[in-house]
């Protein structure tokens, strides 16, 4: 479109005034707000920027990095060294080498330390990304690994006593109310069919609600322009609960993840997703 010199100020103004009126009458046939939000979400599915993180994560997984110049291709995510396909659907899980129940993020840190020679502090220094200047390797790796469980049924085991204990601790933490607002996970996630503003709130203590929620994380959050891991999901829930800051990879974060992931068993994993 090239510039043309024509004086159009008045005709334009009256034209757009007319357009306004037309819009106002057309609005009568408006469907309900929730239906429209559903259309908004459907329209976003077509191109999910999470793919950009998946691609970077796959690259990071295969790159030789760290003082040992090793890739993560020998990292054991629970199904044996290097097996990525379906691994996320079985996490968190007890790992004998670490003698600890681990979620994906803590396991990735473990592999970066043991295989690549990073210090734990280095591996954890950017757990969540913040724009192109502060990208998170962990979130990119999470995007890649989780994408390899798409279509796989959640199958988190409670075979080890430490897994059982983590599940029970996670359940207690789920119901723990505190802080300036008396909030706990339970405040928003213990009932069916509720929403906060226009966002539906899943009942996370039941299989149906837990499946819906857990199988759609990680997700590209359009409000932040970032791919967000499940560790971030919990971190930000606690922020909004008015709790202090959740430590990345802390036991409480793994316990809650265990509770939710196990409750989601049987659900078909479908992430990285795209959300508000």
């Amino acid at each position, binding site marked *: 479109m090239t510039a043309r010199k024509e004086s159009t100020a008045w005709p334009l103004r009256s034209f757009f005034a007319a357009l306004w009126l037309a819009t106002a009458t057309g609005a009568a046939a408006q469907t309900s707000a929730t239906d429209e939000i559903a259309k908004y979400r459907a329209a976003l599915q*077509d191109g999910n*920027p999470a793919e950009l993180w998946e*691609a970077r994560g796959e690259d990071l997984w295969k790159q030789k990095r760290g003082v040992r110049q090793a890739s993560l291709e020998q990292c054991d995510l629970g199904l044996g060294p290097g097996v990525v396909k379906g691994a996320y659907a079985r996490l968190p899980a007890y790992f004998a080498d670490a003698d600890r129940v681990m979620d994906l993020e803590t396991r990735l840190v473990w592999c970066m330390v043991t295989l690549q020679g990073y210090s734990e502090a280095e591996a954890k220094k950017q757990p969540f990304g913040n724009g*192109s200047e502060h990208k998170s390797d962990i979130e990119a790796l999470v995007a890649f690994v989780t994408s390899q469980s798409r279509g796989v049924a959640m199958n988190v085991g409670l075979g080890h006593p430490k897994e059982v204990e983590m599940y029970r601790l996670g359940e207690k933490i789920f119901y723990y109310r505190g802080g300036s607002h008396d909030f706990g996970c339970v405040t928003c996630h213990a009932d069916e069919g509720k929403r906060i503003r226009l966002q539906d709130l899943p009942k996370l203590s039941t299989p149906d609600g837990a499946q819906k929620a857990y199988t759609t994380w990680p997700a*590209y959050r359009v409000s932040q322009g970032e791919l967000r891991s499940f560790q971030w999901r919990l971190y930000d829930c606690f922020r909004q609960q008015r709790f202090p800051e959740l430590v990345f990879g802390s036991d409480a974060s793994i316990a809650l993840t265990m509770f939710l992931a196990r409750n989601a068993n049987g659900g078909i994993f479908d992430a990285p997703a795209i959300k508000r």
Partner: protein
Amino acid sequence: MPDPMKIRATLTGDTTEVKVLMNHEMETGQRKDAQGKVIPAWFIQNVSVTWNAKTVLSAQWGTAIAKNPFVSFKFKGGAKGDKITITWVDSRAEKRTDEATIA
């Protein structure tokens, strides 16, 4: 160097559909940082898509295109195996070119 784009080009009948995701902040110049300083605008200004050295789409963008931009469109022509080349140039004169094969 900016991160690569993710390009999908699919042939259906005689029409090629192109979908592209780009890595870019698309900073509006309206936001402030934690210290209250305005974060300067930084955004993709020009995009061009070529197939067999023919431009099939070119665009000028302002700051209102969403972060990590997405575009999809269709053109007549294309054959499986043909190359689609996409280039963007941003307001810092940084650029990125990526290729994809029509599937």
